């Protein structure tokens, strides 16, 4: 699927006529040059629009499309060249992306590349992009460049150093008086990566792990696991789960209880960032402290953030995507802003020069200032840890107001204090 946007650049009529006349009078090469100047800047990408990652992929793409429309409304880049997106559906599959990116590079001959949403579809294109020396803006993948070491990779996600995710959660738990930890994780790569860093951080801090279990995919009933976890009386419960399990775990916690010893519960539960899942879980979410990327708290509004969400909210209805769109959409927009700022400063599409600019500078976006470390990830983590408060059942709109997810970390974005212990925070 491809989408094209092109409008003539805005230069004076006299100058346009003069240029056109000169070009016509000149050789065919001159005509080609004129056409090249007016040609749009084409950004190619695959995006999961069907399959398991489709919910996130579509929201992310809508964010990028809003940026495209904004930048084109302002007259485009490089003296009037419009931006055009060339997008293919990768069906959430790692098997599809290498062929799609080969086509984007060799057949479509796009000017720049954006990565698809998520780790799995992105990982297989990394060697090819490195081999060809191409700039790639990453889209919420986790540690895909750690072994490849491509110096022209820039991830839009707020992850930062890999251990910061677990460290921030444990910080909150320890400050609340936590002296032991339980680890409940899905037996799946992403969750196990989180668990590994959590174990490392706990070992550094000599924080004893009293319960450490990985549950298999397709686990239906979590009552038994929660009862076993409760019996170990942990102070901090770090959960790294996937969407189907997150709901099952929280339901079992609500029924069985997790014990009065627990100060904080959550950390790495995937799914609790999406509107439909949050609406489904409703009051079960109360008290949970979990990661996120953007939330409607005062501290999270930067230049253009409000305008972006005004546009997103309207277009999300037509596009049938996450009505809230907090987790991915603004970061899709920020990807565009990164490349827009780089092109404006460099004044060309030279990929090496663009990469150098992105690496060496701090960039202001609608999700805050972004600076990259040599591995292309954020210099400092901006992953939020936030506590759900006062959530009621079956109400999507409540999540648009501040105070439903109070930011506890990072310090500069904090919007409230932890309510502990967990059982008290659930009420």
């Amino acid at each position, binding site marked *: 699927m491809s989408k094209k946007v092109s409008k003539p650049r805005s230069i004076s009529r006299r100058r346009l006529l003069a240029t056109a006349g000169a070009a016509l009078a000149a050789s065919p090469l001159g005509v080609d040059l004129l056409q090249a100047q007016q040609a749009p800047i084409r950004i190619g990408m695959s995006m999961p629009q069907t*399959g*398991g990652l*489709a*919910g996130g992929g579509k929201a992310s793409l809508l964010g990028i499309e809003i940026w495209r429309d904004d930048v084109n409304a302002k007259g485009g880049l490089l003296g009037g060249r419009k931006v055009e997106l060339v997008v293919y559906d990768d069906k959430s599959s790692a098997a599809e992306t290498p062929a799609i990116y080969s086509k984007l590079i060799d057949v479509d001959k796009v000017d720049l590349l954006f990565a698809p949403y998520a780790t799995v579809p992105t990982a297989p294109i990394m060697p090819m992009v490195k081999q060809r020396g191409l700039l790639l803006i990453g889209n919420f993948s986790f540690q895909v460049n750690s072994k490849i070491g491509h110096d022209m990779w820039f991830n839009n996600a707020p992850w930062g150093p890999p251990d910061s995710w677990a460290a921030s959660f444990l910080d909150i738990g320890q400050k609340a008086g936590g002296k032991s930890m339980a680890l409940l994780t899905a*037996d799946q790569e992403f969750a196990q990566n989180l668990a590994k860093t959590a174990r490392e951080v706990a070992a550094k801090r000599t924080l004893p792990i009293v319960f450490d*279990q*990985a*549950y*298999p*995919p*397709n*686990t*239906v*009933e979590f*009552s*038994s*696991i929660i*009862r*076993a976890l409760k*019996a*170990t009386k942990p102070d901090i419960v770090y959960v790294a789960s996937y*969407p*189907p399990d997150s*709901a*099952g775990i929280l*339901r*079992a916690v*609500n*029924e*069985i*209880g997790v014990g009065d010893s627990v100060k904080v519960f959550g950390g790495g539960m995937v*799914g609790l960032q*999406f509107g*439909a*899942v949050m609406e*489904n879980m409703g009051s*079960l979410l109360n008290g949970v402290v979990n990661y996120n990327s953007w939330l409607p708290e005062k501290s999270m509004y930067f230049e253009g953030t409000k305008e972006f969400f005004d546009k997103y909210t309207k277009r999300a209805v037509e596009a*049938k995507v996450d009505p809230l769109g907090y987790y991915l959409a603004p970061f899709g927009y920020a990807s565009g802003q990164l490349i827009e700022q780089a092109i404006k400063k460099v004044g060309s599409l030279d990929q090496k020069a663009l990469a150098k600019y992105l690496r060496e500078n701090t960039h202001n976006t609608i999700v805050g200032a972004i600076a990259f470390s040599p591995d292309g990830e954020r210099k400092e983590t901006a992953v939020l840890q936030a506590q759900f408060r006062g959530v009621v*059942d*079956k109400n999507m709109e409540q999540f648009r107001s501040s105070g439903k997810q109070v930011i506890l970390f990072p310090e500069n974005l904090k919007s409230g204090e932890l309510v502990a212990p967990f059982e008290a925070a659930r009420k």
Partner: protein
Amino acid sequence: MFSLDLLLDAVVIGVLLGCFYGAVSLGLSVSFGLLDVPHVAHPAFLVLASYAVYFLNENYAVDPLVAGILITPVFFLFGLATYRLYYETFEKRGSDAGVRGIAFFFGVAFIIEVLIILQFGVDQRSVTADYIGKAWRLGDIRIPYRLLVAFAIATALTVLLTLYLSRTFMGRAIRAVAQDQEALRLMGTNPVKIKQWAFGIATAVLGIAGALLIIVAPVDPTLGRAYIGRTFCVVVMAGLGSMSGTLVAAIILGVAESIVLTMFGASWAPAISFAILLGILAVRPQGLFGRRP
């Protein structure tokens, strides 16, 4: 860490979980156990029923259990139509229909999955009812009400199906067709019509089982895949075609899974369940309650 309380709790939860597995496997026990139809789309039918229950609960605030009963006649008709299509296109045509039948039902399962995605999207869906999200305190043990509902429904369904198959004329005809189709034909009865009726019953049971599925946990369009192994495991372990055996086998599986999850570590749960199946089949190839061929 061993504790008697934990073990007791694991057994109680395991029995209830087993009843849930039994309820979602009973339909397959009829279609696969009695009729020899390789119904791998059974879990997809189950998920479809869950979405129908979700639709009624979300839009008309119908209690999930009532919604399950309401959709039962529709699923009965759906079962009749599915079997007729399967019979005309596959079963009628030869001895290798079994293998091709699997392809047919896989196809049906994928179509159902895609239709659900088109209609409801890829997100998880759940229902609301007073008995979801609360637990009953029994001393130190807390038992989720939704699992008690599963226990009651599974017991009722097993009793009803057992009585139907043993006491009614049509029920006995279904058992007869399972034993010897040719003998039935010689007596002037059309076995295809009886099998179609039985397949309708098997699918109708899924209406209420689908309600249980979404009561116990949220559903998503691909959830059926997770139940293919479990439901076939229960039916084969029970011995093909035994309703009470299906419930007992499911309880064994549920208790084993629950004890392993609680006492030995969650990663081992699926391996232990299927090891039990292999162990039972090694000792009794016809399953726990199956008759010797």
